[in-house]
């Protein structure tokens, strides 16, 4: 469920960014206003999403993709 909300917010961010682009291409006072408002929305949603991801991770709603690599140097043989 949390993953779905996260993806939906990402889509909303992309849409806001897209509207910002449309405003930029349009130009003039109206375009400039549209661009600025869209980018403010995009920044606000992004900060909210970042905090949501951290909070969800802290609460255990989502698990991080922990990336692990080589064990420290060569493993030592063990007596069985």
């Amino acid at each position, binding site marked *: 469920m949390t*993953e779905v909300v996260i993806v939906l917010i990402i889509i909303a961010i992309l849409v806001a960014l897209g509207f910002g682009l449309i405003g930029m291409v349009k130009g003039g006072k109206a375009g400039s206003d549209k661009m600025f408002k869209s980018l403010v929305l995009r920044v606000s949603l992004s900060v909210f999403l970042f905090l949501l991801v951290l909070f969800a991770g802290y609460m255990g709603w989502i698990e991080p993709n922990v990336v692990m690599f080589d064990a420290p140097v060569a493993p030592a043989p063990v007596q069985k």
Partner: protein
Amino acid sequence: MSEQEYYIPDGTYWPIIGSIGLTTLFVGFANQMHGAEWGGSVMVLGFAITVFMMFGWFGLVVNESNNGIYNKQVDRSFRWGMSWFIFSEVMFFAAFFGALFYARQLSVPWLGGADNNIFTPDLWNAFSASWHQMAFMAPGSVTDTVLQSGTVMSFPAVPATGIETATPAMVVDPWGLPALNTALLLASGVTLTFAHHALRAGHRNQIVGWLVATIALGVAFLGFQILEYGHAYHDGLKLTSGIYGSTFYMLTGFHGFHVTVGVIMLTVILYRVQKGHFNADNHFGFEGVAWYWHFVDVVWLGLFIFVYWL
């Protein structure tokens, strides 16, 4: 059509200088890859010519703009040009995110025998169909080696029995540098938005302050990214470390390159703001760079979430 509709610039030598610069750059690069001693120097020369061309050509355009030569038609051309450039950037990163999705969700599980495919353990010595280098063996268990992730990659040749592995070091911790870098880049998006607001309100001193903060945050991001690469590389994650290593460095590397370009562009915009090139109603140069920075910011947010969390 009236003269107002079209702007025909004077002839210029910058395109041919750009062609010479890029050709020199790639000839040098290709020959350096083939081990030619002169390759590196020629590559640097080509890079220098290309940078010279960019200074000259972009400076010419800025001067033409400041001299009031451009009309609304030219303004529209710039805006559409920027939008096509952005479209190519979106497609560029969409391809890499697509590769991440395809490798992680489809090809690696298939190679490991998911769905109707047969398991392919003999595809490569000790092949393991795991996305990350999880290779995590409980102390005391008998195993052959610490496995690398992804598809066909190098494995330390360790005897198959009687070996106990230590718990692998956790290299990329989502709560560490990745989260810090995300916070830095998001903060730069906020400071840039304040700069944008100040520009629209005509407060030049505030624009300078917010822009400097944005550039500083971008540079800090790059610094920490280099630090993270150092950690990851030292602990065994390389471009050759299977599909995970390739995808990780491809995505984050190209993103880092874009942040670098963005920092350079913001620095140029800072210079132009101080020179008084923009006003509250006419500042397309700022808008183009601002949108680019917001895009780079969103790409990183996507990377942070899809690589480290989802």
